[in-house]
């Protein structure tokens, strides 16, 4: 799609509202998008909704006033994003949803990996590492956010298949590394026999690894989510046992490609599934380079 229409593409303006940039995962997503935009020669404007659904609506509205040719939304919340998309629809601007789906409105394309599915994969991987038995604690993200909800739900569903694995505690650590450290420290007091940890993102897991010290990766298996650079490094070091990698950069790249197509009036597929992959010590090399 590049090449021939280079002149017109140079003037394409695309707006992208990212749910939050307070998490390396989304920073990578943005990077993937920006790199792709540069490569394709389009102007990409990225805003940070700071995990606030209504601020996101504002940003999409503002994109519409700026006559963007296409909008990429990384919803703070799938349900709430409907209102945002409607705002763009009214101005006939195609919308691409990335990472999370949009409910209650139609988008041109959804580029996503499935958080619930990822949660299930995490459960399976943790079970495998634990030999299908043991006591597990869950470090939850910010209560009420869709990432926490979906991953938690997937994990809970997934872990049911293993009757000998018991979830002994679920505590919020707000996707934050420091809190991951503090909460894990505290949970080790009340659950000294814990043998597995599921953290709903890498940041919390990295905090938990600190709390676990020498036990991390060995006596206590830790599985988390996202596959951020720091997370991958921990896998290489053998302290983190696995992370469900969502390839955020790839998500961003695909979304920009879809947006350019939609902006040029080309037909786009309704969904692009970017696979989630369980990264372990065995396959970490392929991710660490990309």
């Amino acid at each position, binding site marked *: 799609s590049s090449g021939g229409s280079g002149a017109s593409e140079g003037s394409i303006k695309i707006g992208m509202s*990212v749910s939050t*940039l307070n998490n390396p995962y989304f920073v990578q997503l*943005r990077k993937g998008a920006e790199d792709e935009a540069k490569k394709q020669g389009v102007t990409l*404007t*990225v*805003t*940070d909704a*700071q*995990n*606030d*659904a*209504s*601020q996101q*609506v*504002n*940003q999409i*509205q*503002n*994109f*519409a*006033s*700026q*006559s963007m040719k296409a909008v990429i939304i990384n919803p703070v*919340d799938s*349900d*709430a994003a*409907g*209102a945002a998309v409607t705002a763009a629809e009214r101005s006939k601007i195609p919308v691409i949803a990335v990472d999370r789906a949009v409910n*209650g409105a139609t988008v041109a394309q959804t580029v996503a990996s499935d958080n619930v599915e990822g949660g299930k994969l995490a459960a399976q991987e943790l079970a495998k590492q634990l030999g299908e038995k043991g006591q597990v604690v869950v470090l939850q993200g*910010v*209560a*009420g*956010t869709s990432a*926490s*909800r979906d991953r938690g739900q997937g994990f809970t569903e997934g872990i049911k298949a293993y009757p000998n694995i018991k979830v002994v505690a679920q505590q919020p650590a707000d996707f934050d590394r420091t809190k991951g450290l503090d909460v894990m420290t505290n949970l080790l007091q009340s659950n000294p026999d814990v043998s597995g940890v599921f953290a709903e993102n890498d940041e919390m897991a990295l905090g938990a690894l600190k709390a676990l010290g020498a036990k991390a990766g060995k006596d206590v298996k830790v599985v988390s989510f996202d596959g951020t650079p720091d997370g991958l490094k921990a896998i290489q070091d053998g302290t983190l046992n696995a992370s469900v990698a969502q390839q955020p950069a790839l998500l961003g790249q695909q979304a920009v490609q879809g947006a350019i197509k939609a902006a040029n009036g080309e037909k786009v597929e309704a969904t692009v599934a970017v696979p989630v992959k369980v990264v372990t010590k065995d396959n970490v090399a392929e991710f660490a380079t990309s």
Partner: protein
Amino acid sequence: MSTNVLKRQSPATAWLAGNGALVALVVLAVAMSLLSGDFLTVTNLLNVGVQAAVTAVLAFGVTFVIITGGIDLSVGSVAALSAIVLAWTTTSAGLPWPLAILIALAVGLACGLVNASLIAYGKLPPFIATLAMLGIARGLALVISQGSPIQLPDAVTHLGDTIGDYLPVPVIVMVVMGVITAVILNRTYTGRAIYAIGGNEEAARLSGIKVNRQKLITYALSGAFAAVAGVVLASRLASAQPQAATGYELDAIAAVVIGGASLSGGKGRAFGTFVGALILAVLRNGLNLLSVSAFWQQVVIGVVIALAVLLDTLRRRTTN
């Protein structure tokens, strides 16, 4: 009259001196129009209005509290709780939406009354009482919703719509709440009593003002306004989020203070608060239009807020 009253301000100067934030808003708006061709369009200005609405309504409520010399950190959470209650009562409990809205407002009011009781009768510092309520209301919102957003029925979502092409309901709500605030503050017993309490609580008490009762009303108003903001917020999104309006308390307080109120009480006006909320909204809108990078945005917002208020204090010093 006597010779030693020399300076008399003209009415216009006096009015401006009382509305320093307005100058900052105008400067900001002019700057934005020069920097971005997209700023000064009807649609965009309406957007700014809509985007200011929730903060403004919260800030109106907080204005009462700040004038008494108190603070309300719970408004964001209370807004979220009210929205969740609204969504839950219309869906899970199946109540008709007008009733549900009343219940949501009642919840906001009740939160305010709890704050007020802790402050007036328990003698808790307002910061602590409302910080506690910040956690409690947010927690209850999560408990009721089980952490998931709740869809709103269509009827309610019209509150987030635009009537015709140019009359967004949130803007109407904002203006109405602003007028109510102005009337309460300037013309009612409670309004005048609130200023007296904030200016000199002991003097107010000794003049026969029932300070505790007035505080009760003050925080109840703040809670009720927060509920209104919550309903507007939810209807804009067509769904109630348990995590909605997180951190809005700081925006609301900032709007009030930018508008000329003092956190030590006794000062503050509805119009000032309105302008304060608009400044914040113009700023966010403009930064989006100018495509300022996300990381730099926070820096720029900080700098502009400081400059806006600085402009006001400098102007006040030179005219005095």
